[in-house]
C-alpha cells in the first residue's frame, strides 16, 4: 500500500484550506486520538502536572542514590534509629543503624554526619527515607492496579458490548452489584479478609483495589464501543466486506479504547490515594514499610502534640498531595479535551 502524503498538489484548494504537515505520531494514532494526546500539554496547569509527575519519576528511579538503604536486599524497610516512642525533630543526627551517607550530602552540608532530614516518626522511623522510597511503592501499586483494572474493564466491557443481550445484561448487573458497596469500604473489607490468608504485604490491598476498581472502565468501554459501532468508518468497513473480528480489533477497539486508556493511566493518582487510605487505616503492609499512608498513620497517636511534631504529618502529607495533584492536573486538561463540544477543534 502506498502512503499518500497530505501535502500534494492542492492548487485547486487555493488559499481556502490551511495546509498542515501531519507527523508520524498523528498518522499512527489518528487525528482524534492525536488531538486528545496533544491537548494534555497545552495549558500551564497541565504542563505543571506533567512536570510534577516527571519529578516523582526521577525520585522513584533515583531512590537508592537519594536515600541509600541500610540493607540493599530489603530497601523498603525504613531504617530505625533506636526504638524510642517520641518523634525526634528535623535535623537530629543518626545515632544507631545509620544507613550509608548519600553522595550529595557532604558537598552541600560540608559534614559527614547524616541526619534525619524530615525528623523521625514514632518508633524512630526516618520520615525522609519513608517519603523517598514510598514514591517507588506508590508507582508500583498505582501501575499494577491501573493496568489490571483497565484490562479487566476492557475485556468485560467489550464482551458485554459485542455479545449484547443476556450476556450484556448479566455482566452489567454484576457491575451494578459491585458498585453498590462504597469503594473504600468494600476494598477495606476484602483487604482485611485477605490479609490473614496472604500475610501483611502490598498484595491484599492491591487485590482489593483491583477487585472493586474495574467496573467503571467496563461501563465506559462498553458505552464507547456501542457508540463507535455506529461511526461512518465502521459502516464503510462493513460495506467493503471486512470480517467482523477484524472490524472489532482493528477499527472499533483502537478508537473506542484510546480515551479510556489515557483516562485510566491518569487514575494512578486516585489509586495511590486509596491505597494510602487503606494503609492509614492499618490494613496492608507490615509496620515500617516505606509507604506514604503507613508513615502518615504514625501521626494518629500524636494528635495532641502535633503542634510540636508537625513534621510527621506535613512532609509525607505534602508529598502525597503533590503526587495526586500532578495526575489530577493532567486529568483536568484531558477532561476538557474529551468534552464532545471540543471535538474537531485543534
Amino acid at each position, binding site marked *: 500500500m502506498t502512503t499518500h502524503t497530505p501535502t500534494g498538489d492542492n492548487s485547486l484548494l487555493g488559499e481556502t484550506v490551511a495546509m498542515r504537515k501531519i507527523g508520524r505520531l498523528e498518522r499512527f494514532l489518528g487525528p482524534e486520538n492525536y488531538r486528545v494526546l496533544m491537548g494534555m500539554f497545552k495549558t500551564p496547569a497541565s504542563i505543571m502536572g506533567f512536570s510534577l509527575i516527571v519529578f516523582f519519576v526521577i525520585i522513584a528511579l533515583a531512590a537508592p542514590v537519594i536515600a541509600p538503604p541500610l540493607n540493599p536486599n530489603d530497601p523498603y524497610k525504613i531504617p530505625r534509629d533506636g526504638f524510642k516512642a517520641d518523634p525526634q525533630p528535623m535535623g537530629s543526627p543518626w545515632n544507631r543503624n545509620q544507613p550509608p551517607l548519600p553522595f550529595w550530602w557532604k558537598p552541600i552540608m560540608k559534614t559527614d554526619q547524616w541526619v534525619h532530614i524530615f525528623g523521625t516518626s514514632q518508633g524512630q522511623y526516618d520520615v525522609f527515607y519513608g517519603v523517598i522510597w514510598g514514591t517507588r511503592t506508590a508507582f508500583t501499586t498505582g501501575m499494577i492496579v491501573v493496568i489490571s483494572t483497565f484490562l479487566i474493564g476492557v475485556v468485560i466491557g467489550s464482551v458485554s458490548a459485542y455479545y449484547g443481550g443476556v450476556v450484556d445484561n448479566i455482566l452489567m448487573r454484576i457491575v451494578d452489584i459491585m458498585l453498590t458497596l*462504597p469503594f*473504600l469500604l468494600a476494598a477495606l*473489607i476484602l483487604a482485611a479478609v485477605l490479609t490473614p490468608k496472604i500475610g501483611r504485604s502490598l498484595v491484599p490491598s492491591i487485590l482489593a483495589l483491583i477487585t472493586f476498581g474495574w467496573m467503571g472502565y467496563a461501563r465506559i468501554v462498553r458505552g464507547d464501543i456501542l457508540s463507535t459501532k455506529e461511526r461512518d468508518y465502521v459502516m464503510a468497513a462493513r460495506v467493503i466486506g471486512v470480517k467482523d473480528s477484524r472490524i472489532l480489533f482493528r477499527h472499533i477497539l483502537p478508537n473506542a479504547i484510546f480515551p479510556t486508556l489515557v483516562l485510566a493511566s491518569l487514575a494512578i493518582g486516585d489509586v495511590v490515594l486509596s491505597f494510602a487510605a487503606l494503609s492509614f*487505616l*492499618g490494613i496492608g503492609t507490615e509496620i515500617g514499610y516505606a509507604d506514604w499512608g503507613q508513615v*502518615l498513620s504514625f501521626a494518629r497517636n500524636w494528635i*495532641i502534640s502535633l503542634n510540636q511534631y508537625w513534621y510527621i504529618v506535613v512532609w509525607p502529607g505534602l508529598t502525597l498531595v503533590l503526587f495526586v495533584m500532578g495526575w*489530577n492536573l493532567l486529568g483536568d486538561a484531558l477532561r476538557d479535551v474529551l468534552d464532545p463540544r471540543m471535538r474537531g477543534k485543534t
Partner: protein
Amino acid sequence: MVTYIIRRLLLVPVLLFGVTILIFGMLQFLTPVERSALYVRDIPKTERQVDGIILKYGLDKPIYIQYWRWLVGTIDPVTGERTGGILFGDFGWSRTGSQPVAELISTRFPNTLDLTLWAVAPVILVGIWLGVQAAVHHNGFIDQAGRIFSIVGTSFPTFVFGLLMLMVFYANLQWFPPGRLSTDMQAVVSSDSFKTYTSLLTIDSLLNGRFDVFLDALRHMILPILTLSYINWATFLRVTRSSMLETLRQEYVTTARAKGLPERDVVYKHARPNAMISVITLAGFTVVGLMGGVVITETVFDYPGIGKAAAEAAGQLDVVTVLGFALFNGLILIVANLVVDILYATVDPRVRLS
C-alpha cells in the same frame, strides 16, 4: 411513571441477592472455626467443641446450604431458639465490640446520622452555590479560582486534610477537640436525669434543655463537618458548573434574555432550576454516602460512628463485624438509591421515558 417505578423496583431483589452473595463470598475466605463467630460468642478452643459447632451450624455443608442457614439462621431442635440469620437481624458476634454486631451498629449509627444531618446543608448548599457562581462568571476570576480549588480539593486526601485540621485547630489553638463529647459532658449524658429520645445527641440535648451539651457536641463535630464539606465541594462545584453552563447555552435562556428579563431572573429563575436536575443525583448519593459512615473522616477525628467501628474491626481483622457493617451499608444504599432514582424520574421526565 408507574412502569418506570415497577421496572426500578424489580432491580431491588437482584441487587439484594447480589450484595448478600458478595458478602457471603467474602466470608468463605474464613476457616469454619472463624466463621463460627456468626453464631456463637466464644471461638471454640478444644477440638471436640470445634467439631460440635461445625456440626451444629452446618459449617461443613455445601455452600448453598450454608448460604441459606446464613440467611435464616439455625433453630435449636431442643429449645426451639434461633441463632444467626441475617434476615432476622442477627449479624453475629463482634469480637472487637464485645457485643452482637447488630447492637454495635444500632449504638453507632445514631452518631453517624447526627453528623450527616449537620453536614448535609453546608456540603450541598455551599457546593451548589460555588458551582453556580463559577458558571455565571465563566472564565472569570471566580471560575479560575474555583477550578484551582477543585483540583487542590480532589488532590487532598481526607486523612491528610483531617490531620492538618487537627494540627491547627486542636494541637495549636485548642479550639475543636476530636471525639464525641468532653468528659464532663459525657458524665451528664450518661447520668439518669438525661433522657434519650432519638439517640441523636444534638437533638436529645436540646430536648433535655441542656444547651451546654448541645454546644459541646457541636464543637466536636465542626472539624469533621469542615473536612466532609471540603472534600465534597470540589465535586459539587464541578458538576453544578458544567450543568449550569450547559443550561445557560439553551435557547430558552436566550429567549428570556431577549425578552429583556433582568440577568438575575434569567440565572436564578430560568437556568438554575433546570441545571439542578443533574445535581440532584449527586446530592442523593452524597447524603447516602455520608449515612453509610465515612470511614476515614470518622477515624481521623475519633468520632464514634459506624465508619470508625468498621475501620477498627478491619484493622484487627474482625471480619464478621466488618461484613456486618458492609451488609448494613449495602441495605441502606440499595434503598436510598431507589429513592434517589424515583425522585430523579419525578423531576426529570426524560429519564422515565428513555
